[in-house]
């Protein structure tokens, strides 16, 4: 066991972790932040996406011990300060960017990371960025549309195919 200290959604936490404790286990089991989902546990699906020091990472493929000293954000930290949905979350709701919602936390975290690097992405850039996010329900079109809308671009001409 080793002690780790990190900031999670703005709050400092210190806990003892085992060498093989994954970030998904740390967030979900230790901190009870269950918004970070485990879809595949094999680094493929992106349902577990979080931000570590501002970078998108798969929480199922990082050890908690490696986040010692890091700034971590999860889906639970994405809403506005007053608790209302942020622009990306609201756009997912407005444009029907989810069905069962299982992949959605990872999609929202990926979208946030993309829009930070590229404020007005093209449709192709959005699709490319979502390469590591798998959705079994929506067929992706409305997810892409939601992200484009969240970037402030007009999506009224984009039909759901």
């Amino acid at each position, binding site marked *: 066991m080793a002690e780790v200290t990190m900031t999670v959604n703005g709050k400092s936490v210190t806990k003892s972790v*085992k060498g*093989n404790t*994954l970030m998904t286990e740390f967030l979900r089991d230790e901190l009870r932040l269950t918004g970070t989902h485990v879809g595949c546990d094999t*680094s493929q699906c992106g349902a577990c996406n979080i931000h570590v020091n501002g970078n998108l990472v798969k929480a199922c493929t990082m*050890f908690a*011990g*490696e986040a010692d000293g890091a700034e971590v954000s999860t889906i639970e930290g994405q809403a506005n300060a007053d608790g209302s949905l942020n622009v990306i979350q609201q756009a997912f709701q407005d444009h029907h960017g989810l069905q069962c919602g299982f992949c959605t936390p990872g999609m929202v975290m*990926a979208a946030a*990371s993309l829009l930070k690097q590229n404020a007005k992405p093209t449709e192709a850039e959005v699709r490319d960025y979502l390469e590591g996010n798998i959705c079994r329900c929506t067929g992706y079109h409305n997810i892409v549309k939601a992200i484009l809308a969240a970037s402030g671009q007009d999506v009224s001409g984009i039909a759901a195919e």
Partner: protein
Amino acid sequence: MYSFDMVRPTSVADAVSALGQDEAQALGGGQTLIPTLKQRLAMPSVLVSLSGIEEMKGVCREDNGDLTIGGGTTHATVAAEAAAHYPGLAKLAGGIGDPAVRNRGTIGGSLANNDPSACYPAAALGSGATIVTNTREIAADDYFQGMFTTALEEGEIITSVRFPVPEAAGYAKFEQPASRFALTAVYVAKYADGVRVAVTGASENGVFRWTEAEQALSSNFSPDAVAGLSVPADGMISDLHGTGAYRAHLVGVMTKRAVAAAS
């Protein structure tokens, strides 16, 4: 996963001494090793994380024009920081896996692993790069020794990789869409003294140089130069994604595309 301890040294020297322990193993970005550990295909007693070692990170242009990349540098950092110096290499790094994989996976981890379908081995062999470890320097031509096999000794750490920068280079990857690795991919680099062509994803022996194409492209650096050439299907990987003959065919196609894309 079996249980193990993890240590996070902050210098190469401390990492080397930690790796001297019984059953110790290096942890780079974990993008290959963590899935392996989950499948219980490895049983280290202690993982020595390299991610806290600042001296192993970054992209640096040397006085002689070579580009040195720290062994712990992520694919995302190479994609961003090598773009101005070695665009062919930056483009390859930016096409590995997906954004989250690129934010953790490292060049040292990729070269140490030497997956027969990985991208970096093609860039290192195709550029005639030098693999620098804590004890020595290894030419790429001597480094790759068959799939998942390299010249590295137990406990040896890739601290950096030095790339001579070519006049032009291109990488053409036929992506296996489920794994995002190369089904077959070719890296082509044109230097003043000749062209190098490295093929990944195809051979059962891992990355290899296609010398016939190198000769043809050295006298005429255009896709047409390799039009009449082919590689034998013997020894090519055959799996549910493609037969050996299919991969052998792709080698020619990807070589042409890599030449056409070279910048």
